[in-house]
């Protein structure tokens, strides 16, 4: 365990890449949106470069130490994407570009062609190409994606290249990482549903590849397959949804579809029942991608992938794709802007799915001992919050209350932002913990056979008392957990409060069906407080639970910087953005982030009032119940069960020290009876969903798959083989004509000439 070496000099190759955007902005007068293609193209170019260079120079020392097996190249490409994004976002924020006008920037036109309709008439000219669609939703998600991809790539350089298990395969990791990033950026920028779907699938592929990064481990290969197949179920429905949409509107372009969702192709009035099914199908696709009930089973298993992958794909970016898709659907139901009325049920279904998933995932998280699994369930649960919020937004917009609808839409998207930042950081922090514990374990048992081979560096039952050993990580994890829990004034509080309040508001409006989701997410708020605190206390507070912990140091380079940056954003970013009116911005209600003409203090007081003392007394009650549950009851219970003082002589830094001390003072509580109950076992088995699915699949899908295999082998292959052998036969025959004798060739030419005459004369006679 050497001293932390500063490796910033390796970042020098990034400088020319960072210079691209400033140069472009100085050179060109056109809007930065015209350069949005750079965001996707930079990783697109870098992907093969990393893969091929890595293949060629695999064991080269320079490649390993200076280029970090492609990590620096990946970082360079992502730095181009990030700086372009910042340029575009800045342009919008300072008001150069108008946010309420969705910008479609032409990027690439490939081929234009006519479409032959089924009645054999040419309908219209189509252009196959890619355009870029920019609105506030795009901007927010684009920033989240590029920013986190960049930071996590940075983190991965430290995490992946120092782990001997990745020997010589890191270029594969970074290439896939960059390919994934391009998928995410492309999906966010796409200006029609088809491109969205294509990039969606690119992400699905990369998710599969990266979960199965350790493909020689059986569990990893199985997890990758499970993730791929489960999301594929959703994707099939998504595709059906797209086909229905195409049938209704005759186009999948956002510009065409969203222009007037109430009129379909040829001016026909859109039936709400038909649109309902299209939206439902799209929603099922989103459920698969965002791991919601009942397609949630893949996400916990996906933690088999390397931790940076979990941080990036399964917490911060890809799982948000489903949310993004549902948020994109708002114009369909927004009756205020030509939306189709009569789709409240869709909103209710979204909210219910969200509520159920939130509660279920939170309860399973209670009993998880694997630090990454806790975070995985927490991700599901938090995404479910956002779904509930989006469901309420759909409901409000469709019933005509667009102010409430936009507010909760903005709050949901804000929660998406907060959650992505916090969860990305939490995963990186957990990665840091796992990495260092693993290192310490290897160090301790180095060269000895009697080492504990079953030692699991991800198991929180082996940890405890790490607060003094890992000051940066523990601080990051504390702020991240606070943001997820919704501790007042920090990160996620500002958005979560809005979602819960508005869901209840929908119920108070007289929609009794909203009571279910509203109750579920309110209860989940308290549960979140418990399981997140439990994770933190189990890992960082109390006495060390194994001898390895004494040898842990926070020493790997590249890991701390992203944690520090994200800690800062989580701690104060949420508050700052809330004051600047981000909720209105995200729902396209306001143009820019600004104080809206108030002074800073006024705005702060306004926001605090809005959060803690809303005018509606019922909402005030809901708000304070949430705070009580999540801030007081959950964490205190967790602290009583799992908290405790550190070992003698150890002390933590001031950010987390008070928390450890507090948890030691709260006393302890024995919950063995609960941990041994049947409920705990059921939760441990993930409520038997996996068993259920496996049972169903082995009875239905597998026989069908076997039949398909038989059909493919005998019927389809048979036909193809027949065609092939006949072709080969024909080929042999026809080649006999080519005798090699010039006389025969001339003979054939003469025959040909005679045939031409016969044809010319015969046809024209």
């Amino acid at each position, binding site marked *: 365990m050497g001293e932390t070496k500063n490796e910033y000099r390796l970042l020098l190759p990034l400088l020319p890449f960072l210079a691209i955007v400033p140069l472009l902005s100085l050179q060109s007068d056109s809007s930065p949106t015209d350069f949005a293609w750079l965001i996707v193209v930079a990783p697109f170019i870098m992907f093969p470069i990393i893969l091929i260079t890595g293949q060629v120079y695999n064991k080269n020392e320079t490649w390993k130490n200076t280029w970090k097996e492609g990590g620096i190249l990946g970082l360079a490409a992502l730095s181009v994407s990030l700086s372009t994004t910042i340029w575009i976002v800045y342009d919008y924020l300072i008001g150069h570009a108008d946010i309420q006008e969705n910008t479609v920037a032409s990027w690439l036109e490939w081929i234009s062609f006519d479409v032959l309709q089924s*009645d054999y008439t040419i309908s219209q000219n189509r252009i196959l190409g890619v355009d870029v669609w920019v609105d506030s939703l795009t901007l927010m998600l684009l920033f989240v994606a590029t920013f986190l991809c960049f930071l996590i790539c940075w983190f991965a350089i430290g995490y992946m290249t120092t782990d001997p298990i990745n020997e010589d395969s890191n270029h594969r990791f970074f290439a896939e990482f960059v390919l994934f990033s391009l998928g995410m950026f492309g999906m966010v920028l796409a200006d029609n549903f088809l491109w969205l779907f294509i990039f969606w699938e690119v992400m699905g592929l990369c998710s599969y590849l990266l979960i199965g990064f350790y493909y020689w481990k059986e569990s990893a290969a199985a997890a990758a397959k499970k993730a791929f197949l489960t999301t594929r179920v959703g994707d099939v429905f998504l595709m059906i949804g797209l086909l229905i949409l195409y049938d209704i509107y005759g186009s999948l372009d956002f510009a065409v579809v969203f222009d007037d969702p109430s009129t379909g192709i040829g001016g026909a009035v859109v039936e709400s029942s038909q649109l309902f099914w299209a939206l439902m199908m799209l929603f099922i696709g989103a459920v698969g991608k965002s791991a919601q009930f009942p397609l949630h089973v893949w996400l916990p298993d996906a933690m088999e992938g390397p931790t940076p992958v979990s941080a990036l794909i399964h917490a911060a970016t890809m799982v948000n794709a489903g949310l993004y898709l549902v948020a994109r659907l708002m114009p369909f139901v927004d009756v205020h802007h030509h939306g189709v009325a009569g789709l409240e049920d869709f909103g209710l279904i979204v909210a219910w799915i969200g509520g159920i998933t939130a509660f279920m995932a939170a309860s399973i998280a209670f009993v998880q001992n694997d630090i990454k699994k806790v975070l995985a369930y927490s991700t599901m649960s938090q995404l479910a919050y956002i779904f509930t919020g989006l469901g309420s937004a759909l409901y409000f917009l469709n019933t005509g209350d667009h102010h409430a609808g936009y507010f909760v839409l903005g709050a949901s998207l804000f929660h998406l932002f907060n959650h992505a930042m916090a969860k990305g950081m939490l995963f990186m922090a957990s990665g840091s913990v796992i990495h260092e514990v693993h290192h310490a374990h290897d160090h301790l048992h180095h060269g000895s056979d009697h080492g504990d081979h079953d030692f699991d560096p991800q198991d929180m039952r082996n940890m405890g008392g790490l607060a003094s050993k890992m000051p940066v990580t523990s601080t990051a994890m504390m702020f991240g957990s606070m943001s997820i829990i919704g501790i007042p004034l920090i990160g996620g509080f500002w958005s979560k409060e809005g979602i819960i309040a508005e869901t209840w508001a929908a119920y108070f409006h007289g929609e009794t069906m909203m009571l279910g989701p509203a109750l579920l997410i309110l209860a989940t708020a308290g549960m979140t407080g418990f399981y997140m605190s439990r994770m933190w206390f189990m890992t960082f507070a109390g006495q060390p639970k194994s001898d390895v912990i004494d040898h842990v140091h926070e020493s790997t380079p590249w890991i701390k910087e992203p944690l520090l940056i994200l800690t800062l954003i989580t701690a104060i970013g949420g508050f700052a953005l809330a004051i600047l009116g981000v909720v209105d911005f995200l729902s396209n209600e306001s143009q820019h982030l600004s104080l809206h003409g108030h002074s800073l203090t006024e705005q702060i007081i306004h926001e605090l009032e809005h959060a803690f003392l809303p005018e509606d007394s019922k909402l005030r009650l809901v708000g304070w119940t949430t705070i009580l549950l999540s801030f007081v009851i959950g964490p205190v219970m967790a602290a009583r069960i799992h908290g405790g003082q550190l070992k003698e002589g150890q002390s933590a830094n001031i950010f987390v020290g008070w928390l450890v001390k507090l948890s030691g003072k709260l006393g302890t509580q024995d919950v063995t009876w609960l941990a041994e109950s049947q409920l705990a076992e059921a939760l441990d088995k993930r409520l038997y969903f996996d068993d259920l699915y496996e049972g169903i699949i082995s009875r239905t899908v597998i026989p069908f798959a076997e039949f398909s295999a038989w059909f493919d082998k005998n019927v389809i292959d048979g036909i193809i083989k027949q065609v092939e052998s006949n072709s080969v036969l*024909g080929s042999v025959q*026809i080649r006999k004509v080519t005798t090699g004798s010039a006389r025969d060739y001339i003979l054939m030419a003469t025959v040909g000439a005679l045939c031409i005459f016969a044809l010319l004369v015969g046809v024209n006679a």
Partner: protein
Amino acid sequence: MNLPLNMSEAELIIPELIMLAGLIAIILIPNFGDASFRIPLSRMKVPILIGGNRFKLTSNPKLPNRVSLAIFSTAFFFALMQTTYGKVGDTLEVTPFSRLFTLIFTAALILATIATTHRIPARANLNAPKDSDSENVATKKINALIDNRRQVDFHIILIMVGLGMSLMSMATHLFMLFVCIELASLSSYILVAFHKESKVGGEAGMKYFIVGSVASAIGIYGMSMLYLWNGDLSLDALALAWIESETVDPIAGIAVGLMLVAFGFKVGAAPFHLAAPDAYSGASSPVAGLLATASKAMGFVALMRILITVTMPESGEAFWFTTIAIIAVVTMTWGNLAALTSTNPKRILAYSSVSHAGYMLAGLAAIGSGLASEEAMKLILTAIVFHLAVLVVFKFGAFLVLSLLETEGRSHELKDLHGLARREPLIAGSMFLFMLSLAGVPPLSGFLSKFLMINGIVNVSAGTGTSDVSSVMDWVTSVEPVFWLAFAIVLNSALSMFYYLRIGLVMFFEEPENNKPMKDALSLRIAIAFCALFTVIIGIGPLSDSLLQMAADAIDSFISN
């Protein structure tokens, strides 16, 4: 003084003049020497440069290759930069159409010259064999010396090919057209037989020459009948006469039929293509590449002149529609079927080239149906011209890869490609790209041209089928036959995947015979890389737009004639 060419006309044909000057230069330059002439009755010596001891610099055997490359590159550059167009004399006219073809021809010739650098290597400072040398060594030395000696010959012929082809695309008179074709063709026969000491080379050249001259003779006979009919062979006059005659005059009809034989041979249409696979496999790969790209393009220019410019009626079906349609389908099917079981990569490429001719003939046939609107006709012609242009990139690219293999004396067997991916991953990757592009896989340039073609043909047949029919057969018969041409192209494309992908298969999955990387032929490698790059960027992106625009402009100028 009455110059045969005034200055403004000369400006129009700078690329051809460059080639002409190059032709003279390439003969003169290697013969520069210190010879001098003594003025009689004096002691003054006037250096006359030709003869005597040759200068070291100009007698370098590598020089002709460089000169040739320089000539074609400048010709290419000037053709690219040309913005003024007009008539040159009575029989030539420079149009965007002819300039695009000059670009195609010179581009192919540039690639051929680069490939020849390594295919027929020239080495300075060679020694004659000594008596003490063993027979083997002596033969090698002699061969190397022969290679040095014939550098000039090869490049002279190459320049003549370029000159003939380039002038041919500008010809507005059928006779001029024929003379230029013959200039290029006779030169290319020699190129095929250039390695006369190898048995296959001489035989292939001979066969190609015999069949080619029979085809030419038939064509010229047809042309003479056309002259008999009209008395004027300029294209404008012929077209005018054609429109004026109410029905197709038998003499004129037969004349056109005879000329189809000659041009059918040039493009490699069945059943006149039979000598082509032999010629391709007998010739060296650069020459085969030239035949498959430039020579084919030349044939199509001639066909388009005779079929579209002259005999296409104002409205209604052209009398050759059925003939060309049948030839097209037979050609593409024959080419693809024959390629299936071929094991010689050059023959596979030759047959693939035959089938591509079939696709393009199908496009011409669709125009001949008379159903095509002005726009659809332009679309199809643009697709043909675009295809001929992009062929230079990926078909010649494939031949360049074979040239690289030939530098170690192989490329006649599919197994020479075995395991190429392991020996030369980049070369194999490029080759695979060329194959995919030949097969028409998006987003490569081969896809774009095939797509445009099918799009155009289907467009022509649009509106003919009905959807409210009770049985499939009703529908089949209700659709215009032109639609089935597009269908044939699609089916044939599927068939062709079989052999294109087989080349990829053997390159990536078979064991190589040896694992050594190939010769370090740098300029050839660069050329291959360029071809691979262009295969992609002409398929998608701004460059494809500008090339398509060039092709569309060319067709505009072609039709307005």
